[in-house]
């Protein structure tokens, strides 16, 4: 029995040793942002973390439509090298991205909902807003086009989908993002233009499906259910090989989709400490380096660029940002 006791004591002390060892690994990992003293810690784990400990982490929240296209995979290393920071990219719908900004959890936001952005700026959360790219939305759906929307204007098309869905929800379905994303905001605008009140559309019947997912998952879902949906052209192209639904409506003033970037205002959010980096980031997005890259991003794979850079003046529709909004550097 005595042997048993000593043995279990030995086991326990082994466990405690192991745990304290692991704790020494965890703790530096917990607050990598500010730990200059980590260099005098000789443990192997600490040194692996020390490599990144000196480099500040710059956090941004970006919309899913930009993330799902893979664009940030290209941009991330470029900016990290240029600004000597770690660029941490969190993806969320525009609504959630702005919420992260309001809470001070990110240093900049990249979004595409003009109305929500205007509110964000007016409330003082955002500062130094600039635009850097645009493209268009489209309405995609099954090639058979059961609602007969091909070639219509966006609002006429929505009207047809509504009527078709009411008549036979097994044939005509519409997938809505159902989150507070920029795409969802655009969808609401088109329903309004078509003469409907959005809250009525939400309750209009089983043909209207609120997915509550990002752009990519919604495309896959619409494909599974052979449903219509509103999508940005970049995500649609990036998923083209994976879906059989086709673009049906591509023309319309309502379809303009402008991507904006804003820094979080330190005057309003006391914890925002990265304004200089955020400014550098905004200016960099407007720089020739990025703008030229945007013009070619996706051409090899999809036959056309996923985003159109604003520089070069291609955006001439009503609703396009003013020249100074994408050329004047922020300070």
């Amino acid at each position: 029995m005595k042997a048993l006791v000593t043995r279990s004591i030995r086991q326990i002390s082994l466990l405690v040793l192991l745990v304290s060892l692991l704790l020494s690994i965890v703790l530096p990992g917990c607050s990598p942002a500010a730990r200059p003293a980590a260099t005098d810690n000789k443990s192997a784990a600490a040194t692996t973390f020390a490599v990144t400990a000196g480099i500040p982490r710059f956090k941004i929240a970006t919309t899913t439509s930009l993330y799902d296209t893979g664009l940030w995979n290209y941009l991330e290393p470029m900016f990290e090298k240029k600004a000597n920071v770690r660029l941490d990219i969190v993806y969320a719908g525009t609504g959630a991205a702005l919420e992260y900004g309001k809470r001070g959890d990110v240093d900049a936001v990249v979004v595409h909902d003009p109305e929500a952005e205007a509110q964000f700026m007016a409330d003082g959360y955002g500062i130094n807003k600039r635009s850097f790219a645009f493209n268009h939305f489209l309405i995609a759906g099954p090639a058979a086009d059961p609602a007969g929307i091909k070639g219509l204007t966006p609002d006429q098309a929505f009207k047809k989908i509504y009527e078709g869905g009411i008549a036979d929800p097994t044939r005509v379905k519409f997938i809505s993002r159902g989150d507070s994303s920029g795409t969802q905001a655009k969808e609401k605008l088109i329903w309004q233009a078509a003469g409907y009140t959005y809250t009525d559309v939400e309750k209009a019947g089983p043909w209207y499906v609120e997915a509550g997912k990002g752009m990519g998952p919604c495309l896959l879902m619409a494909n599974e259910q052979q449903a219509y949906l509103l999508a940005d052209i970049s995500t649609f192209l990036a998923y083209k090989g994976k879906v059989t639904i086709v673009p049906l409506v591509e023309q319309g003033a309502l379809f303009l989709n402008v991507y904006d970037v804003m820094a979080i205002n330190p005057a309003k959010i006391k914890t925002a400490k990265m304004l200089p980096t955020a400014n550098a980031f905004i200016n960099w997005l407007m720089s020739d380096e990025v703008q030229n890259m945007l013009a070619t991003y996706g051409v090899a794979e999809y036959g056309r660029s996923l985003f159109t850079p604003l520089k070069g003046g291609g955006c001439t529709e009503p609703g396009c940002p003013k020249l100074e909004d994408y050329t004047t550097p922020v300070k």
Partner: protein
Amino acid sequence: MQELWEGLVQAVQLIVRLDPEVVEISLRSLYVSAAAILIAALFCVPAGGMIHFHEFRGKKVLINVIQTFYSIPTVVVGLFVFLFISRAGPLGGLELLFTPGAIIIGQVILILPILTGMIISALNGVDKSIKDTALSMGASGSQAIWTIIGEARFAVVGALILGFGRAISEVGAAMMLGGNIRGYTRVLTTAISLETQRGDLVLSLALGIILISIAMVVSVIVNVLLQRY
């Protein structure tokens, strides 16, 4: 169903090739969840022991409450921790949100109840007479307690493996608290979630197979060690 086979093939390829990104994500998953289970064990083994060895009013109720929290949804844990560690929250000054440390905290809270509850059950499984025997042979009170924990070690380790499994397989807290940042807080489950939403089902499946393989390796190693000591 073709995808299942392709997923298996790709998983084997990724493991054999030691794809750097997959290795990095896998190690992070392992590290985060191992840290979570060890920190949780620091609380739960003593807490489970104290609850088991002491008789007090409301003991049954407490155990019921603990068992209720077995089924706490991971996203609720994520949301709860989010509100605390977001910059606007009471612990915002620690700047923990969207770091691996945040995921560890979430997973610790997630597995606290299950680990405590399972340890109480493990100790219940030990014959009561062992404590008396130990005491009668001159062991002090705490020595007797350690003896019983030693006797229950298989069940205790089983509880630890279960907790580890819950931690490494959860996605809600890791997504909400870590933010799935590439090269920083991306773990296997959040990577699977992302690749699924990108429509790359084969890669998702391969990552899932890798996750299961890691869990298998961990449980085999732990069991071998347990047999030896």
